[in-house]
C-alpha cells in the first residue's frame, strides 16, 4: 500500500517535471548561458534594459531591424547614438571579446527566438559574412 502510494507520487513528480521542461524549452541553451554571463548584467535578465542607459534586447525594434549587425556590436563594441523603441541611448558598450562567431550566432538566435516572436534565426555562415563586412569597425575594449 505504502509502496504503491510512493510509486504514484514519483510518477506525478516525473510528469510535472516533464511538463515544466516542455513549457520552458528553448533550443538555444548555449545562447541562454552566454547571455546570462555576458549580457544580462547591463541589459537585464529578461532583456528589459536599464532606465535610459542600457537599451532593451527584448521586443527591440532596433534588434528586429538590425539582427545581423548585432554580431558586429557584440564583436567590436559600439560608441554611438542608438535609437531603440523611440528612445535615444548613448552609453558606450565594450566589445565582448570572449565570444567567438559560433557563440555570437547562438546569442543572436536566443534573442530572436525568445524575445522577438516570429523572427527567423540566423546561420553561422550569415554571421561570419556579417563579421567580415564590419571588419573595418574600431575595436572598443
Amino acid at each position, binding site marked *: 500500500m505504502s509502496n504503491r502510494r510512493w510509486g504514484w507520487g514519483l510518477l506525478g513528480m516525473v510528469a510535472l517535471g516533464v511538463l515544466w521542461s516542455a513549457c520552458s524549452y528553448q533550443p538555444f541553451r548555449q545562447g541562454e548561458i552566454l547571455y546570462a554571463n555576458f549580457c544580462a*548584467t547591463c541589459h537585464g535578465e529578461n532583456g528589459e534594459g*536599464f*532606465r*535610459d542607459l*542600457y537599451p532593451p534586447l527584448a521586443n527591440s525594434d532596433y534588434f528586429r531591424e538590425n539582427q545581423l549587425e548585432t554580431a558586429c556590436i557584440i564583436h567590436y563594441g559600439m560608441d554611438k547614438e542608438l535609437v531603440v523603441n523611440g528612445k535615444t541611448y548613448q*552609453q558606450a558598450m*565594450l566589445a565582448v571579446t570572449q565570444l567567438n562567431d559560433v557563440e555570437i550566432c547562438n546569442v543572436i538566435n536566443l534573442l530572436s527566438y525568445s524575445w522577438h516572436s516570429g523572427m527567423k534565426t540566423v546561420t553561422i555562415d550569415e554571421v561570419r559574412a556579417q563579421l567580415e563586412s564590419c571588419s573595418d569597425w574600431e575595436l572598443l575594449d
Partner: protein
Amino acid sequence: MQYRLFFSLGALALMMFSACGDPSPAAADQALPILGNRDIVDGDTVYHQIPDFSFIAQDSNVVNNATFADKLYIVDFFFTTCPSICPTVTKQMLRLYERFEGEARVKLLAHTIDIRHDSVPVLKRYAEKIHVSSDKWHFVTGDEEKIYDMADDYFIAAQKDPDAPGGFDHSGRIILVDQNRYVRSFCEGTDPDDVTRFMDDVQKLLDEQ
C-alpha cells in the same frame, strides 16, 4: 516512524537554514561600530578617518568633504563602460538612492576609476540616463592617484589591470561614512541581500542622529 523521520529532517533543515542567517543577531540592538584600524594616542583611541579630498562632479561642481558635512554618505567606485560588476552595483546604489531619496541627510558618492574615458560630460550623461538628481548622487572624477588613494581609505580595492574586463580591477563594495568621517558599515554591492542589510544600517545611523 515516517512522521518522526520527517520531523527530524525538518528540524535539521531549519537548523541548517538558521545557521546560515545573520551571524550576530544580538548586534541588532548595538550601535554601529567604527570600522578600520585604531591607534591609542595619549590614552585616547583614534579611529580611521576619511582624509580631505576634492573632486569634480557631473555638473562641473566641486565635491569635497564640506559637501558631506552633517551628512551620511554612501560610497562606491565604478566606471561607465565597465562590463562586469558595475551595472549590478549601480543598480543596487539606485535602490539605496530610491530608499533615501526623501532623506536630505543621506547622499551618494560614486568615483570613476577610468578618468581617461569618464569625463565630466560622460558622467553627467550617465547620471541623467538613470534619472538621478545631481544634488543627491555625485558622480566624480579628478586626480587619478587621489581617486585610487581614496579607494584605500574606503577599504575598496581598485587598480588598473589590462587583463580585467574593461581594463580595471575593483571590488563592488559599498561603504557608509558618517558625519565625523568614520566608516560605519559596508556591504557587497553585488549581493542584493547584503545591500538590504546595509540599508537597515543606514537607517539605524540616521535614527541615532
